[in-house]
């Protein structure tokens, strides 16, 4: 008789078993904030299409302290989302060779973050200029 009886361990709660997986779930979870914020902006667009009165109702809603608190939380979540997104980027792309040398992971992550920061500053500047 075959005495082999391989034992398969359960995967229940796998993401709690290693700090690396916990961090993974947190940074994946920040995507929910990205989706929620896209929903808020989309809602604003719908209100805008319904005329000035509806648009002002939406603007007024944004001024509630709950909404401002949510915005602060979302800003933190999106900041972390951006950081982790660029942190994994070197693992997801073909090697970049500059002058015969392979670009280091941190150079790629750093460039990504710099571009994201520049894009954010440009967008802020544009909106600021339009609002004046």
């Amino acid at each position: 008789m075959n005495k082999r009886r391989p034992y398969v361990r359960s995967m229940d709660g796998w993401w709690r078993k290693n700090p690396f997986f916990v961090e993974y779930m947190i940074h994946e979870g920040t995507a929910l904030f990205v989706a929620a914020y896209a929903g808020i902006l989309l809602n604003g667009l719908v209100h805008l299409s319904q005329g000035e009165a509806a648009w002002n109702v939406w603007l007024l809603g944004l001024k509630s302290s709950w909404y401002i608190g949510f915005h602060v939380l979302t800003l933190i979540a999106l900041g972390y989302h951006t950081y982790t997104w660029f942190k994994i980027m070197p693992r997801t792309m073909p090697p970049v060779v500059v002058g015969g040398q392979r670009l280091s992971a941190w150079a790629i992550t750093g460039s990504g973050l710099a571009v994201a920061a520049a894009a954010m500053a440009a967008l802020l500047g544009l909106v600021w200029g339009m609002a004046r």
Partner: protein
Amino acid sequence: MSDNQKVIEIEVLRYHPEKDKEPHKQVFEVPFTDDMSVLQGVQYIKDYLDGSLSFRWSCRMAICGSCGMMINGEPSLSCQTFLRDYYPARVRVEALSHFPIERDLVINMEGFMEKLESIQPYIIPKEPRTLQEGEYLQTPEQLNEYEQFSSCINCLLCYAACPQFGLNSSFIGPAATALLHRYNVDSRDGGKAERMELINSEEGVFNCTAVGYCSEVCPKHVDPANAVNQNKTISAADYFLRFLTPKGGAK
């Protein structure tokens, strides 16, 4: 044994299929010196405390890839992990995660062997070549394309680090994909089209959600996550470009 001999507790997850319904923990007190690896600690248990303890090992110098275990929950080669780094706390050892346990610290790796075979881990020449035509020539740049991925020692730590493999064992997984990529980007090889069918399949690279832990635990700096994710791009490009340049034979 001298009076100042240090003793560390090693907790081992035991499983004997003949008598155990499920694995259970057993703690051993192991005298050790600062130069002893976890593997040597486990060998001490087998030699002096309990001869029935089963585990795989061979080279003791991180080349053979046999002695992978979960050490305090992290996939590690036990020959290059040292007891002194855990002392005075207890060190926990367990068979590699996500694989069936055959016995004690020995996993069943048949599934991986089948995957390894399926990727055709050898050069498939572009065209037949006679001995008279001489050797294949390759530039250092062409070598750089695949060299990192050829360092894989099949230790399976990356599979123990991959929750997607744990949830779906049919996923071809990090090491097999890294080796597949190693041959696909070799300038001497002509087997890419055959191997891409595996990359594009249900078992292929899109099971990966870029957790990235596989590359963190790799003792040979292969970066299997990079091989998997590069092939997602190649696979997606292959899928969409066929609308522009019909090649026929798409499955």
